[in-house]
């Protein structure tokens, strides 16, 4: 895994593995990701921002993508053309909205939504986020939110719902 990196593309919640040489920069990663189909081709690579997943600000394009601890574990990267994404969460007919970096873990947005709607106790452990409707796609906790959002929308409507219980 030393020369590989997990990359989440724009609007693609399933990561892909990208092979990189040891000193590769963020811009090189973007170009390779475009060739691999993880990012749209035919767009200037510099239009994409490269984020370490769950880190608020993008890295510079000439930044070396490496393990910050000096080891072999390179952090997952998310590339997106939106610098911020407006997330609106609906629950029981109420709404809260906020801008998040595309790299923000879905689990962090879930925790924010639970706080905003004033949920406490057991209610907090029984919630998940869905895309577009109360029966829409369940978002994966450890995926970056930008992997569910296309460009140029830079926004998403989510629903906070109870986790369906396995019964019957």
């Amino acid at each position, binding site marked *: 895994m030393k020369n590989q990196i997990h990359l989440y593309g724009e609007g693609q919640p399933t*990561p892909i593995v990208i092979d990189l040489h040891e000193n590769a920069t963020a811009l090189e990663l973007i170009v390779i990701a475009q060739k691999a189909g993880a990012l749209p081709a035919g767009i200037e690579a510099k239009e994409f921002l490269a984020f370490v997943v769950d880190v608020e600000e993008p890295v510079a394009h000439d930044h070396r993508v490496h393990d910050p601890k000096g080891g072999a574990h390179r952090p997952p990267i998310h590339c997106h053309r939106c610098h911020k994404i407006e997330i609106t969460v609906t629950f029981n007919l109420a709404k809260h909205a906020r801008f998040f970096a595309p790299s923000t873990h879905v689990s962090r947005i879930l925790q924010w939504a639970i706080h905003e709607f004033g949920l406490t106790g057991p209610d907090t452990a029984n919630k998940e986020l869905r895309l577009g409707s109360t029966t829409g796609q369940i978002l994966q906790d450890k995926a970056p939110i930008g992997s569910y959002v296309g460009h140029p929308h830079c926004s998403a409507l989510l629903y906070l719902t109870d986790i369906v219980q396995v019964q019957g």
Partner: protein
Amino acid sequence: MNLALPDLCLLKLHLEEAPFTAGVARGAWSLASDSELEHWPYCRLWIEAQPRFIESGRVGLRFKLDNYPASAPTAQPWDLKLDTALPLDKWPKGPGNVSNVFKPTGNPPGLYAPCDRAAMPGHDGWKQQFPQWWWTPSHMIVDYLTFIHRCLNPAGYAP
């Protein structure tokens, strides 16, 4: 390892793909050892779990994966140190889907989940209730792992 077995070959392929390896990299799950595929159709993995559900912070599972992915997997909680079935009184317990899913089903017991072949028969209603999790041949082992990981690590929970 017998590469003539298509079910084993497909599993091996899926274990090398990014959705599985990304989970390994973040400590969500892993094969229990490097030689797991030598015991086909059995394969042991562990899944991260909040310690309030199981003290060790990990649940071992012994999967049976014959005819994968055409047939759904089935998994039994497993003591990876002793290499034996986990006694029922040590299965994870907790609110929501923790105790719902970790409920012995069948013999040997599988998990009570819409992606486990031991529980699927007689639960056709789950197809509509759990369209993302109801096992079909287009699913991969990582889907089963993700479902169980979500049960054992509710993201909204703040200790």
